[in-house]
């Protein structure tokens, strides 16, 4: 099964850039990603620019509305994601728990719906 791990955290809660903690934090991300690759479970994974760069779009009555900002103003913001290929949710939870942001933010695990391709 495919699982999406959504990485949420409140702004300015993680280690600040240009500190030794930040270096360690980035190292932990690299180590996690390496584990995913070595175990053959990584399908994708990216970090996002912060929500001040987000643009939201709606089509209503065939007309496009474009808005500055994220869809929902929440304290914890989506900052990145991974997509894993796992046998079951236990595996997905195990890999998602290695995401360093989980120590101060929240990682949401969602199964990806299977839709036929043929």
């Amino acid at each position: 099964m495919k699982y999406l791990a959504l990485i949420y955290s409140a702004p300015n809660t993680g280690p600040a850039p240009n500190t030794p903690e930040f270096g360690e934090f980035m190292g932990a991300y690299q180590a996690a990603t390496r584990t995913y690759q070595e175990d053959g479970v990584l399908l994708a994974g990216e970090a996002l620019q912060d929500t001040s760069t987000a643009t939201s779009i709606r089509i209503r009555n065939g007309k496009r509305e474009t808005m500055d900002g994220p869809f929902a103003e929440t304290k914890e913001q989506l900052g990145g994601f991974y997509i894993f290929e796992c046998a079951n949710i236990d595996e997905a939870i195990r890999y998602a728990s290695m995401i360093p942001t989980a120590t101060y933010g929240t990682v949401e695990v969602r199964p990806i719906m299977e839709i036929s391709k043929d």
Partner: protein
Amino acid sequence: MAGHPDNQAGTGPHIRKGNAIPPPPENEKDIHRHLDRLARKERGRLLAALIAHLNDFQLAEDAFQDALERALHHWQKNGLPRSPAAWLFQTARRRAIDTLRRTANFHSKQQEIAYETRLNGLMAQDRAEMAMQQAPAIPDERLRLIFTCCHPALDKKSRIALTLHTLGGLTTSEIASAFLDTIPTMAQRLVRAKRKIRQAGIPFAIPGKEQLEERLDTVLSVIYLIFNEGYFSAHGDSPVRTALSAEAMRLARILLALVPDQPEIEGLMALMLLHDSRRAARFDATGAMVALEQQDRNLWHKESIRQGLAFLDAAMSRHAPGPFQIQAAISALHARAPDHTRTDWPQIASLYKELARYRPNPVVQLNRIVALSYVEGPKAALLHLKEVEDALSDYQPLHAARADFLRRAGHVTEAEKAYQRAIELAGEETVRMFLQRKLGQMLRASN
């Protein structure tokens, strides 16, 4: 593949008890009652085996339900089969094969291949057993089932409901009434939980070594919550509630048989037996709750205490402490004390401190403070209470404890206020009656 009885390394011993099924029934009414009893007794084992076999919770359950209905007609007409459990299992499996055939609907080639493989496997097994005139083998898969039902990805109430519904002998309506839910709400909860198991990929499996301890603690907590719902919820001793406690103890016994020598399971068993030993002393003739302090210890059930202490001793001899053993040890100190004053309070307070390492929450702290109040006195306890007052400001037992400390310290007016607050917060009539009585006693004594 799941479903092959010889293919589950690490599932623990497969116990197959000699089933003490009552003598064959003679008339239709007897058949009905017999089937009812059989369904209650064997539901968990048959359902677990079917789920392992079919790899589908809902399909297994529907098929089992269907088999029960067929059994009633069939057995009334033809008498009891040689092995009623095997008959139910085989019939359910055939019903499931029919359903699979009828509802086949594939989104992809991959799914279709998986379906064919599964169906062929099921039919081959059925044919082989028929040819050899063998009763189908029913492996004991209940341990996998209980780990699935108590999976941390499910919400707490759903874990309880699902465990009672699949492994327990309670019907949906009994579970609904025990948890003060309507039947449709409870049924909906069960449907949602089963859908999440399927769609989120919650495995029908015993967790691996590195997760086992944590996951076992979740399972034991579910069982203990079921017990508590039947014991502490203070709705009095209605039959449904007593059934819940009995059900929790039955589940723990099943677990104990499936995972022998596990000290935390023994600890939970001890804890429940020790609590249960006080059942007769917990309510007075008017239905009001009686505090431990005032309970008539002659009403405590000696055999339950003996069994509870034996389980605790067995657990402690394994030298692997855990939260359920600690709670049982606390309960054991009460059981061993000749009366309330001659209880080993210092030891109880230090056990609560130990428990807080596993259960770091203010309720455990509050319990420790109550124990400490019998060591250091009520004035010191009032000071300690400040540590948890904010976290537990709407928690009835906090105000009851405060009232008690104030009363013992001689501050009647303040104690009265605290009692009033506790009475306001008490959800249950039995608790309200208990607090009102304490307040009345205090006011009479101070006049």
